[in-house]
């Protein structure tokens, strides 16, 4: 049997798959609250109990984790009490030699190229993918993940990126003011895309539009709602998608436009004629907004002939599969035992 997991800060999603070729549904799966365990091993142990499987059933395992993985060692980005996760430790615990540990973006990269078309929303449908690199850009809860899928003329190879931490490139006077606003907050010397394209980033954009008076006035009703929630980004998004408040709509519009601009830059950096994929929870939540034209306008707003270059060569697709990290970890596991 194959054990695969997406280990996230709040919730972890584990599943067991049959050791067979193809896209088979899981034979067992469970969501578990990560913070209630003291280590990944404890979490996996509890998973086995809940789904009535044993370690001995597992022949190969792979986990995608929300944190960096270097040389077989991974650190969960926001669970400090967990010890370092190691391939060796997991291998000993499962008594199984075939174990791998991936960053969640890398895991996503294993599943993305084989997603069926009904799990993708096409934003540039006149363009079909060419043989060449692809890229993933995922605005997630707290961060902005990027990944290169290097095309080796036979298959895609995930190659990690830290591009979410590159400098924000403002495109107009409004965005220059946004950059100045964020530089003025705290002791920041640089403003990266992650400070804009994440849930806290959306709140940054909202606050900028409000405080600079570049956006509409904040209604007292909205102020109350935002004061009483722990998750202002979700509130702003819901209201914007329902078109109930001008300021929220402006904030989400600017968010989506910056998302399009950076995705267009990434397409140029990686020469991603194989496809630009938008992943992560935020893209999924705002998929209707992503397809209203704002994103693609920014994606193709490049200098000289590169406007047309991006429009005519880059397939752009939103990933609609919520379990893409889990499926990627499972695919990696299948590759490890020669099933792919």
């Amino acid at each position, binding site marked *: 049997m194959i054990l695969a997991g997406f280990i996230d800060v709040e919730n972890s999603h584990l599943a067991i798959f049959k050791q067979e070729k193809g896209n088979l549904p899981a034979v067992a799966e469970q969501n578990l609250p990560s913070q209630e365990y003291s280590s990944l091993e404890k979490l996996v142990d509890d998973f086995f109990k809940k789904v009535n499987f044993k370690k001995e059933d597992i022949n190969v395992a792979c986990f995608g984790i929300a944190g960096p993985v270097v040389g077989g060692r991974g650190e969960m980005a926001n669970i400090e009490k967990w010890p370092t996760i190691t391939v060796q430790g997991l291998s000993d615990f499962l008594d199984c030699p075939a174990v791998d540990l991936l960053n969640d973006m890398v895991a996503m990269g294993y599943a993305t190229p084989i997603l069926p078309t009904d799990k993708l929303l096409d934003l540039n449908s006149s363009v079909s993918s*060419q043989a060449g690199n692809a890229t993933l850009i995922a605005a997630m809860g707290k961060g902005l993940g990027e990944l290169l899928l290097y095309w080796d003329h036979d298959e895609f190879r995930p190659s990690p990126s830290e591009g979410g931490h590159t400098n924000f*490139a403002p495109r107009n006077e409004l965005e220059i003011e946004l950059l100045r606003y964020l530089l003025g907050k705290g002791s920041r010397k640089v403003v990266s895309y992650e400070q804009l394209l994440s849930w806290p980033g959306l709140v940054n954009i909202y606050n900028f539009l409000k405080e600079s008076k570049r956006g509409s006035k904040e209604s007292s009703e909205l102020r109350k709602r935002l004061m009483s929630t722990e998750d202002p980004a979700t509130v702003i998004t819901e209201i914007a998608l329902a078109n109930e408040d001008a300021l929220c709509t402006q904030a989400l519009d600017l968010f989506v436009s910056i998302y399009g601009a950076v995705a267009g830059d990434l397409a140029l950096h990686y020469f991603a004629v194989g496809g630009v994929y938008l992943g992560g929870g935020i893209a999924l939540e705002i998929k209707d907004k992503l397809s209203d034209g704002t994103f693609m306008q920014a994606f193709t707003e490049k200098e000289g002939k590169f406007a047309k270059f991006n429009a005519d060569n880059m397939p752009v697709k939103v990933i609609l599969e919520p379990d893409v990290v889990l499926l990627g970890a499972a695919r990696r596991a299948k590759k490890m035992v020669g099933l792919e």
Partner: protein
Amino acid sequence: MILAGDIGGTKTHLGIFKCEGNKVISLLDKKYESQNYQSFGKLVQDFVAFVKQSSLTTADKYIGVACFGMAGPVKTETDGQRSCQMTNIPNWPVIKETELSQLLKVEPVVLLNDLEAIGYGISQLSEKDLVELNRGIPQAGNRAVIAAGTGLGQVMLYWDGNEHHPSASEGGHANFAPSGDDELQLDLLRYLRKKYQGKVGFERVLSGPGLENIYDFLRDSGKYGKESAELAKRLDNRAQLISEMALSGKNALCSKALDVFVSIYGATAGDFALHSFAVGGVYIGGGIAPKILEKLRDGTFMQAFKAKEGNSAQLNADIPVNVITNPEVGLLGAAWRGVKT
């Protein structure tokens, strides 16, 4: 033997190479003025004739493969063949692998983008071809090349655990991201938005014409001193003069322009390193870097390279950064790519 070439908008450098172990060795080479020929085919036929008349042995004259790095976008057609339209020689017909193959009676012929050729050339360099800007901690992993010259070229080198594979990039046309401790680069962006209808890519600041743009912005702002009489008279190749006057310390305006240029160069190289996760090293190529070496080494470049948020500052501080001083890196790379067919 390998016929290799570095095909530029102004100059073309062709050579015959042999391979020993992991290195290519030049047997014969010649430089040409590209614009003196009506087509690339005619130019390369001239060289083949030159090789035939040379004193090379019959065995050394036998060309088994040809590979060219082109200053222009290389497209892959649906049949897998590659073709290229040279960027600055519009009167040359489109260059196609199949047509060159028939003309030269050589199979295979491989066309590469000039930056890809530099990417292949990295493995052919030795210590004497490099000047270190940051020692860092060398690791096995991806590499990145950024090269400001006539334009801004980038290429990343994907590490497959065994060797590096150059992967083309058009990141030089991504949106310019101003940085720095003051608002100078924000004003530069505002200035260039007016000049370029609102769209400003990195190449508008990181190239010969880019240095001129930075200079013009500083001059027009009136805050950084007066334009020298010599520069005011100069109409073409001002970038060369600006960098010379900056390095000699003769003109404050030029010095400031080069300082801003190098700071943006560092910040952009640092961003490309993050995009590429280039823990295997960053290489500064192109025609400008070897001319401004002392300025690149004064700390401005690396300070901007490392000025990233959070952990990314340390990630970049650990990356080895080197300037490529061998102008033949592209030719060597084309030859090495020829070996690998």
